[in-house]
């Protein structure tokens, strides 16, 4: 009786995954308007979940508010009126563990204008 080495490959129901290299991908989304950002983030997470990838849901980093308060007048004359300019930067992180092909699909998502997407892939 020949002995077949017990390996994971012989077990029934084993899915071939050893050959496929998985990457750890971190997607950083940053934008000035939160609505578009949420839309893109939700889209990404949904797609990843559809493909049964391990996703760490959108981590919301604290938004950075940049504000500038200046006098309206170019000179010092007049009642002291002040301008308040604000800009909020929202940032979301999405972590994925996925094979390389999924990386291609990241690039095919529809990206809203104004949302900056950065991808960091671990070696």
């Amino acid at each position: 009786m020949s002995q077949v080495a017990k390996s994971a490959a012989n077990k029934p129901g084993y899915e071939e995954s050893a050959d496929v290299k998985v990457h750890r991908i971190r997607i950083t989304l940053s934008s000035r308007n939160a609505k578009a950002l949420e839309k893109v983030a939700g889209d990404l997470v949904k797609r990843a979940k559809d493909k049964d990838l391990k996703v760490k849901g959108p981590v919301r980093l604290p938004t950075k508010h940049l504000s500038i308060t200046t006098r309206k007048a170019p000179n010092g004359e007049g009642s002291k009126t002040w301008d308040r300019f604000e800009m909020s930067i929202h940032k979301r992180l999405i972590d994925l563990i996925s094979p390389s092909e999924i990386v291609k699909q990241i690039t095919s998502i529809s990206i809203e204008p104004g949302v900056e997407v950065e991808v960091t892939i671990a070696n």
Partner: protein
Amino acid sequence: MGKKKPFINKREARHFQVVHRSQRDPLYHSEEASPYVLKPVLPSPNLKKLFDKDPSAIPNPYEVDKDLLDVMEPRDLHDDDEYYDSDEYYYDDDDEEEHGGEYDDADEGEDEAASKPNASSAAGAGAGAGAPSPAAPATDEGKPTRGTHFTFEGGEEEVVDESKAGRAALFGIFYDDREYDYLQHLKPTGAPGAVFVPAKPPMGKKQSAGPVVFRDDDLPAEALPSRYEVEPATHNQVEDYGLGLDLPEELREVLYALDDEAYVEDDDRYFTNLDKDEIDEDLAVVVAEAEAKAAKERELPEVLDWTMAARLKELHTGDSDDDDEDDKSSAGGAGGRSEDGDELASLPSIRKSRGKKDDNMSSFSMSSSVLSRTSHLELLDDRFDQIEREYADEELGAVDVEAPPALNDEQRQFMNSLLDDFLSKHSVTSHNTLYENLRVQGGGVGQYDIVRKMLKTDEDGTPINFNLDKYQYVEDTSVPLDEEDESDDEMLRPSIIEDKYEEERWDCESVLSTYSNLENHPKIISERGRKSKAKQSLAAQAAAAAAAAGPATQILLNQRTGLPKLAHQGVAVEKSDDEEVSDEEEELVEAVNLGVARSKNEDKEEKRLRKQALKEAKREKRAVKKQLKTAFKDEKVKQERAAVQRKSQAKGMLL
């Protein structure tokens, strides 16, 4: 709980940005490729926090302490362009790889971005590697590292002072450079003519966290920008073959065939041939003919201009039309029917023009000849051809003025009789007034004359009867045919109506004044009418003076009264005349009221009475004046009030 293992080690990871695919990318137009690509980017400067350092020791980039130089991420300092330019001071053998990477730019565009993270991550790695092992000297050769480039300044000065001799060693040039400056041949990256010479990797220096080689082989190629770039698509999609002399012969033939109409097959034969299993014999003939034609074309001079090509094509189509038609009419019908009993109904053979007619092969022109022919353009082409054919007609030209057709005698007579009949009718004209219908001698003048005669009245006002004898004034121009002269020339000459009123022509003066000279007989203008009255008076005075002074007195008569003028009397009379006249006509002489004459011998009483009378008169005058004034004033006030009232009423209505 300690710090969890980070999900991604950002120092060693690869950083990308998702951007739109470049328009120069050949995959830009493909629908399968993704519209976005991963563009490698440098890691964010914020990542210095992620170093394995005391986060509180984050240095201020504007104040550099020498102690912290080996701690700092060199990339901070390299943010300044100033430092980037003087690259030579920063590199040692270790970093020559990325230094070489910096210098490489021109040839491999896609590696530019690749090399940058290479450099920075190498730098990061190098510094990171250098820091944990401070014991190990950064370099073996004693060459300055990034971390100690400030101390290198001193060393550099020495080098500069000596003879710049050792500088070439920085760049991997180990020749003796005391006499010859090898650095003059070094060019910065991207300069034309720069060649990348990679440095030899140092032996034994590689650490686990050494320079990171940018690996993108594990990523699907589609996710990354393409290696090669293509010019972005323009309107001129036509390939520029030029003459294409070096193309294979068959290919050239095919290219010619695309434009040449001789290769066009008519639909009916094509599809019937498709149906059959055997090839039509005559088709082979056609092919042979086409080949012969192509051979003929090759003999002709190379077509350099599309106009020439058009003309050549015309010549060919002229021949080919006849040939093809002959062939097809004879062979198509016979061949088709002979081979097979059933045949497709043959469509009327329409000469179809292929897609690109006179195609200008140059990619510089944007004219419509370059654009591919759409159906609309083809329609226009056909229409233009049609019109061109019309204009090819040689008979087109300026219309010659033809001589009137010559009539023979009978026709001429007939014409003349017709004209006479027409002319003799009086009521042909549209204006049907009695007077206009008269073809009166003298034209309009004669007509006017007749009208005046008719309107003549007696002194009482009764109109004088003026019997208008129409035919007195009408010249009978119609010569009855019986009385015609022998000579035909007179007949042909149009008869002129002569003017019978030549004796009494109107002169210019009469016409201007609209007085006819029949009743207006202008005379010599007399002196009297022209002179003014003042001048007249002066002349009269002079005459009077002369009359008074001179012995030879000329008795002048007063023109009005007819009485002789005497010296003094004449003057007075003249004067009074003048005064009267002048009062009436010319001057406004104020009448001076001298009042009642005062007698010389006047009593006091009379004087008193007179004075009283005067006073009374004055008083009355004053009263009257006052009355007038008040009356005027009252009227004025009344009018103003009425006006104001009217205004307010109007306003009231508006409100």
